[in-house]
């Protein structure tokens, strides 16, 4: 077979080869676009993801303590190590040095006050100048700028001098002489970025824990910020240095990031070695490696999905080419028989086919390069991908060219296969050997599919480190096997049609049935349609399943429509601020680690968390699908305690009046109050002597501010002790009776059953205190009577606790399934819970698949009020709220911004998280690839149909002419072809839908993993979007008909007497 022969034959059969080339180009372009999604697309996705990652997740911090006399040198050394670790990424560093705590001049009452210096080299970037100017280094007294609250509370004005005393920390900090500084400016810390400050940017705290074990609490002010580097260069007095490195990740390649990650992992050891010559203590806190690992894991998961698409597309293209190859071989059967008869060896024929295939491959690859780039550019410019930051033109890469070359060669190689086999006889009888071989191949493929499915189902729910080969190959094998097995139905139906044909009087339908049953090429076309329909319908169903699962995962992770952390311990007014910003139904939430018995963490190291939320509004607040149609209101109904009615706090002072018998007592009262949103707060007051006189209480919250907003008193904690401890014989047991009345202005009495209790004292008979509420002229009075032990052992104050609800016998909790299994707990069991330092008894009210906001992690769910009461009952009156949840929020999209403006940053919405999981830059490529597959499947199906019907056009021209010669009308012949095609198409598409549906039901949920490659919680439910699938199927049927019907019409017209001169060819 000379090149001239090949060229002439190719020219003569240009139409057929053009159709074959089109199939190769479609398949190769799909591969190339997938390759671009996996390379250029992934690079852009990574950059976009890192751009949108919060800065704190990209920075690396080095914390230095015990700096001695040369903090500047140690800092410079640490900066060098950090830069080397992050190389080759450009790095911006920020140095934050904090002095030891020092005494400030005492206040007017003579009380001690503390302050500290700071050296912040990027102060203008993290604070806004309120007045004056930033400090500069000079020859005079050091200049300082202070936070506005510091200046206000200390009464400092610009130009004032303030002296900070010697260091109060243990020795070893070098020169720590007093420092007298001049205030030259005041500033307001920007939101965020002040976590390195001792006071978190607040400028003041009333209770700075100081001294050994933080046993002393004093007011503290600061920082007093000096000029950059002035504190470091002073040589001593620096308590700690925080060095923050922010790498510039724009344009960083995967290799650069891998180097940086490795460098950071080695940084702690390198830093210790670099600082080994002195006593400096160092610690590296790097979020970047975890962030990069997370990005890489997500990209690996997405990459696996794109590879599945590429493989399925390749299989489709290969199938289409297999069909094309058989058609070409059939077309050339006589020619090849002639060549063989003329002495051509099989090797020569194969070489000729291979040469032709190679030319096709080269042309296809060359065409596919620009087509892939164009298609990628168009795809990346679609709204979802463009919004994710993937838009823009792409350039050819070695990976692209290599993929296209290999793909085109492999696809074109499919064309060579028919040349290796003799053409099947045109009478449609298959050889027994061929049937046995095909049956064997079907069995092997089916077995592989079953094994792949079982392995996929049994795949461990662990994070993936790279592309998951099982996740990538199993779906492809399952689809192929499904299509192959489904194809078995076609001959059965064809045989039925054959039998029916024999019993028919007519010609058209029986002719169609015979052609369908006995033409071998019909099976090839059917298989392509089955596989293409299966791939397309599976793709549509997988997209719907996957998107739905992301929404459900977001619901489960956030736990509610909106969740926002409580920024500080000062909760006063936070609930009102949340309500004003968000609206809807809101609830305080407490999320904290707990210990079950002695177990603090599960076997995999995950800490057990307790989530407490207002379960009265479970239907509005709790999100996340539960299996078996259960609802959160139903499963949490056993957690909600009976409502407790407290005493509304009105205008006017709260007055405490007390009297004691036996000895004079003093009581330090703490009011437990709830705001309108149900958040528990505690208000402290100065100790009161129980001398029978009314004492108005000056209540303060944790921030030292008076209470504000609508508050309800739900408890009173009295810390009772002897007024004169020296008068008490510590070895003599002494009990004192007391009666305390708390006047609450504006309150009304209610049916609340107030109770009082005090911890039992060993060796003393138990005494039940009493409590009652009675009306008063200006409100209500809560009166409690008790007998307390103030002498003998144990020494120390006694707590008397009065609450609006009786102490609970246990805390009802729901357990997550994994926790229940690990603990062997069942409903009704009682568990020992350690919540902070409080020991509680939990009562298992039920087991749920997961706790909202803790999917996949061990957790307990309780009611907020129930938890508050349980903790109060054991004497724990600490603030309870760590965050806020909201449901039924109008304008949810704008809620996080409104909350940030109100000083509550960090809000997350389930909808927002869902959008990120679905359409984030690292994820969006997957569905883009699936959409590409659906389109390619449709294109290949139509191309295959066109090929098949075009082949019929040429192969049956003679036969058609003969039948016309027998008197068969042209319309009847066209009708037979249309009937045959309709039967093949309808049956194949129907079978393909069946295979796609089965794969959607069985495989799609298994392919739907989290962005880290783990099993989602809740487990994905298969979705079958009927409208989209119906549209797809209708499109395929109509498209195939649009191709076949004109061909059938042309067939009848073209068959002329000319064909009667030919023997089987055009």
């Amino acid at each position, binding site marked *: 077979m000379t090149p001239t022969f090949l060229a002439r034959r190719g020219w003569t059969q240009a139409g057929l080869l053009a159709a074959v080339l089109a199939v190769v180009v479609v398949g190769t372009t799909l591969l190339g676009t997938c390759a671009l999604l996996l390379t250029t697309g992934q690079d852009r996705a990574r950059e976009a993801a890192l751009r949108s990652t919060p800065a704190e997740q990209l920075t690396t911090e080095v914390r230095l303590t015990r700096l001695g006399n040369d903090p500047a040198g140690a800092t410079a050394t640490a900066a060098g190590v950090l830069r080397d670790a992050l190389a080759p990424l450009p790095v911006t560093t920020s140095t934050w040095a904090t002095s030891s705590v020092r005494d400030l001049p005492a206040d007017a009452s003579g009380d001690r006050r503390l302050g500290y210096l700071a050296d912040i080299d990027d102060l203008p970037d993290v604070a806004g100048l309120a007045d004056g100017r930033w400090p500069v280094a000079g020859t005079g007294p050091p200049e300082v700028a202070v936070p506005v609250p510091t200046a206000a509370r200390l009464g400092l004005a610009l130009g004032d001098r303030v002296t900070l005393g010697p260091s109060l920390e243990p020795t070893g900090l070098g020169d720590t002489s007093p420092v007298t500084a001049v205030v030259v400016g005041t500033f307001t810390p920007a939101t965020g970025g002040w976590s390195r400050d001792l006071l978190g940017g607040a400028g003041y705290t009333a209770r700075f824990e100081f001294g050994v074990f933080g046993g002393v609490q004093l007011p503290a002010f600061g920082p007093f910020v000096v000029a950059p580097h002035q504190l470091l260069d002073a040589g001593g007095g620096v308590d700690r240095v925080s060095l923050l490195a922010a790498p510039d990740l724009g344009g960083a390649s995967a290799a650069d990031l891998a180097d940086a990650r490795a460098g950071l992992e080695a940084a702690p050891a390198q830093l210790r070695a670099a600082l080994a010559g002195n006593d400096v203590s160092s610690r590296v806190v790097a979020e970047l490696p975890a962030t990069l690992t997370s990005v890489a894991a997500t990209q690996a998961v997405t990459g696996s999905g794109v590879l599945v698409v590429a493989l399925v597309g390749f299989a489709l293209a290969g199938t289409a080419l297999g069909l094309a190859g058989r058609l070409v071989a059939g077309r050339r059967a006589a020619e090849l028989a002639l060549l063989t008869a003329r002495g051509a060896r099989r090797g020569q024929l194969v070489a000729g086919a291979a040469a032709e295939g190679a030319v096709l491959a080269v042309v296809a690859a060359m065409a596919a390069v620009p087509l892939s780039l164009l298609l990628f550019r168009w795809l990346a410019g679609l709204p979802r991908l463009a919004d994710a930051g993937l838009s823009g033109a792409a350039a050819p890469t070695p990976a692209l060219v290599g993929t296209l070359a290999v793909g085109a060669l492999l696809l074109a190689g499919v064309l060579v296969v028919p040349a290796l086999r003799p053409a099947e*006889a*045109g*009478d*449609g*009888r298959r050889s027994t050997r061929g049937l046995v071989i095909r049956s064997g191949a079907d069995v092997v493929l089916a077995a592989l599919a079953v094994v792949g499915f079982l392995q996929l189902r049994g795949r461990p729910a662990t994070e993936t480190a790279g592309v998951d080969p099982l996740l990538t190959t199993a779906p492809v094998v399952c689809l192929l096997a499904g299509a192959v097995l489904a194809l078995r139905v076609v001959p059965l139906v064809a045989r039925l049609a054959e039998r029916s044909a024999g*019993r*028919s*009087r*007519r*010609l058209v339908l*029986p002719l169609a049935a*015979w*052609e369908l049953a*006995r*033409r071998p090429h019909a099976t090839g076309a059917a298989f392509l349609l089955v596989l293409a329909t299966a791939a397309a319908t599976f793709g549509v169903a997988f997209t719907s399943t996957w998107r739905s699962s992301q929404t459900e995962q977001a619901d489960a992770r956030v736990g509610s429509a909106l969740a926002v952390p409580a920024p500080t311990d000062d909760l006063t007014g936070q609930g009102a601020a949340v309500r004003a910003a968000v609206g809807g139904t809101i609830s305080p939430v407490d999320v904290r680690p707990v210990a079950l018995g002695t177990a603090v963490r599960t076997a995999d190291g995950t800490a057990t968390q307790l989530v407490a939320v207002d379960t009265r509004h479970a239907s509005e607040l709790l999100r996340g699908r539960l299996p078996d149609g259960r609802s959160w209101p139903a499963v949490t109904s056993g957690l909600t305690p009976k409502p407790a009615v407290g005493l509304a706090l009105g205008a006017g002072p709260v007055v405490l009046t007390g009297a004691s018998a036996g000895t004079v007592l003093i009581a330090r009262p703490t009011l437990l109050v709830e705001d309108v949103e149900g958040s528990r707060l505690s208000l402290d007051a100065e100790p009161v002597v129980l001398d029978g006189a009314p004492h108005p209480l000056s209540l303060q919250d944790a921030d030292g501010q008076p209470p504000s907003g609508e508050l309800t008193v739900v408890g009173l904690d009295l810390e009772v002790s002897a007024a004169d401890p020296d008068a008490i014989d510590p070895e003599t047991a002494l009990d004192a009776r007391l009666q305390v009345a708390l006047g609450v202005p504006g309150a009304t009495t209610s049916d609340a059953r107030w109770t009082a209790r005090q911890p039992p004292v060993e060796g003393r008979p138990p005494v039940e205190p009493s409590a009652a509420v009675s009306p008063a002229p200006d409100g209500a009075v809560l009166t409690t009577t008790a007998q307390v032990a103030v002498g003998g052992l144990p020494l120390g104050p006694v707590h008397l606790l009065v609450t609006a609800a009786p102490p609970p016998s246990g805390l009802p909790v729901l357990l997550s399934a994994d926790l229940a299994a690990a603990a062997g707990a069942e409903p009704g069991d009682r568990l020992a819970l350690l919540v902070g330092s409080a020991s509680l008894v939990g009562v298992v009210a039920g087991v749920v698949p997961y706790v909202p906001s803790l999917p996949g992690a061990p957790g307990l769910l309780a009611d907020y009020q129930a938890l508050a009461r349980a903790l109060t009952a054991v004497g724990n009156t600490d603030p309870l709220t760590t965050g806020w949840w909201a449901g039924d929020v109008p304008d949810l999209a704008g809620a996080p911004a409104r909350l940030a403006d109100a000083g509550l940053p960090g809000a997350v919405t389930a909808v927002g998280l869902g959008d990120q999981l679905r359409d984030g830059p690292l994820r969006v490529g997957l569905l883009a690839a699936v959409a590409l597959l659906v389109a390619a499947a449709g294109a290949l199906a139509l191309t295959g149909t066109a090929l098949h019907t075009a082949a019929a056009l040429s192969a049956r021209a003679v*036969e058609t*002419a*003969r*039948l*016309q*010669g*027998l*008197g*068969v*009308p*042209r319309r009847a012949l066209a009708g037979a072809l249309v009937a045959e095609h309709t039967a093949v198409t309808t049956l194949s598409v129907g079978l393909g839908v069946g295979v796609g549906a089965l794969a959607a039901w069985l495989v799609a949920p298994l392919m739907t993993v989290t962005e880290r490659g783990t099993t989602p919680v809740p487990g994905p439910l298969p979705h079958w979007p009927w409208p989209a699938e119906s549209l797809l199927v209708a499109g395929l049927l109509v498209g195939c008909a649009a191709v076949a019907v004109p061909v059938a019409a042309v067939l009848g017209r073209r068959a*002329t*007497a000319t064909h*009667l*001169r030919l*023997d*089987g060819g055009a």
Partner: protein
Amino acid sequence: MSEPMVEVVGVGRTYGTGHGAVHALQDVSFTVAPGELVALVGRSGSGKTTLLNVVGGLDRPDAGSVHVAGTEVTALDDDGLVRLRRDVVAYVFQTFGLVPVLSAAENVGVPLRLRGLPVAEREHRVQLLLELVGLAGHTEQRPGEMSGGQQQRVAIARALAGSPQLLIADEPTGQLDSETGLAVMALIRAVVEAEGMTAIVSTHDPVMIGLADRVVRVADGRLVDA
């Protein structure tokens, strides 16, 4: 004198245009009487097949007229031609013309299906026809499983299935060996005599020529004698 079965008057057929035009037929006129077996003789490319196609309505002449069984073929539309080929004219092709995916019985049954015969009647007639051509035991075989002679006999049986008035055979023995060809020719002769049909057979075969009632010679698109 009875009306001729076939009357060809001044028929001409040209393929192509200009310098490349091929005058396949030029002013051809002849008649065929009912029950006559006419041998159409000529070299390859003389116009035999074109003339047969024109007579049978598979091709349209550029000039002249053709009457078959009193019907002007050249004036028929497509539907008329279909009816002509279904009810009046039957073809036997040199390359047998069988549908490769149909069995012998199914091939023979095609004309009967066109007439909508009841299934039982059709199957009975098919069996009779195959017995007539000596292939009663080959009903389920497909063309690829039969010899050339067997295939041609099936083709003849198919041609007879519609009880045509005119049988047109284009070199029916062209692909057969002499012995088989002789058998096929004898069959055609016997069928023509038994069924009383008219037949036009193009052939090179001197035996067939010898079996014919009349010989019409064609050369370069013209009749040498009619």
